[in-house]
């Protein structure tokens, strides 16, 4: 009986160790967005993105604080927080999903993998299921991931007053770039 308990304990620990070796994270990933308009381009960056990848399950998640986006212009940043993203009401944006064909990625060898990531993107109190392309790079034991995709402002109930519609583009380009460490 004692042997069985010890064996189960050993297997549990070994399994947990193995699972831990498959988890990668960052707390300073970058997410930036860009929108080209007639008058002035909208360009902002957030370097406080938490992201976790579990290579065993294929799950990937991102979360960030909306008030941590930095705009070159203070007034743009103010308007973004107060009128558009309403960061007091909706402090966070997040994504939770899975990486397709995760089993094709060998994290022990250098390589570049084009994958598809599917999941729920939550912005401004609205959650939408999205599917976006991403690149995962393994080099010298380091893991990084990047993605570029577009979202429509109106899909997330972000209302832009008509007086400034020529300033804010309808389609926003989002770029994500993260370098991970092993947990």
């Amino acid at each position, binding site marked *: 009986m004692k042997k069985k308990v010890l064996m189960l304990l050993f297997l549990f620990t070994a399994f947990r160790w193995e699972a831990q070796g498959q988890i990668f994270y960052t707390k300073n*990933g970058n997410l930036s967005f860009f929108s080209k308009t007639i008058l002035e381009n909208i360009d902002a960056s957030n*370097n406080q993105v938490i992201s976790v990848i579990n290579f065993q399950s294929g799950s990937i998640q991102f*979360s960030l604080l909306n*008030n941590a986006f*930095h705009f070159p212009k203070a007034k743009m940043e103010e308007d973004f927080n107060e009128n558009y993203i309403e960061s007091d009401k909706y402090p966070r944006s997040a994504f939770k999903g899975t990486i397709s064909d995760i089993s094709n990625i060998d994290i022990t060898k250098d390589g570049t993998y084009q994958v598809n990531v599917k999941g729920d993107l939550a912005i401004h109190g609205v959650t939408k299921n999205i599917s976006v392309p991403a690149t995962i790079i393994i080099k010298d034991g380091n893991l990084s991931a990047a993605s570029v995709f577009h979202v429509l402002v109106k899909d997330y109930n972000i209302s832009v007053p008509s007086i400034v519609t020529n300033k804010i583009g309808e389609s926003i380009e989002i770029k994500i770039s993260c370098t991970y460490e092993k*947990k």
Partner: protein
Amino acid sequence: MGRKPGKYIALVFVAIIAVAVFIGYRIWNKPHADIRDADSVKTTSIALYEILSKSGSGSVTYLNKVVEVSGAIAEVLKNEQDQQVILLKTNVSGGSVNCTMEEEVTGIKPGDTITLKGICSGYINGDKDMDLPGDVFLIRCYRSI
């Protein structure tokens, strides 16, 4: 005789428009506030993390405010845009006060005590299932003398 008042009115009108445009331009292009000169709320990294990670009523004191936080350095690293990030220790292993620096601080190492001043964005949860604690984030940070 009738032309002069008309001319004056037109000049005044143009002057008003010019002033309005100038004010609008100044507002639109106003610079970000200088954190170094701003009044701040003083605390420690341990206390700040304790309060914000529990998101109680105490967090109102710090959220979106300029905070001056003292603590021991856990790690110094660089982010995706090559900015220095200083992680200050808390009472939670793996949980930090995560400070992105506007100016790089040289000659520091893990274990040193430091005081940093920046805007407190708040706390993001890590992942309980993966045993990853969250961080409290400060942005636009400078070293306090």
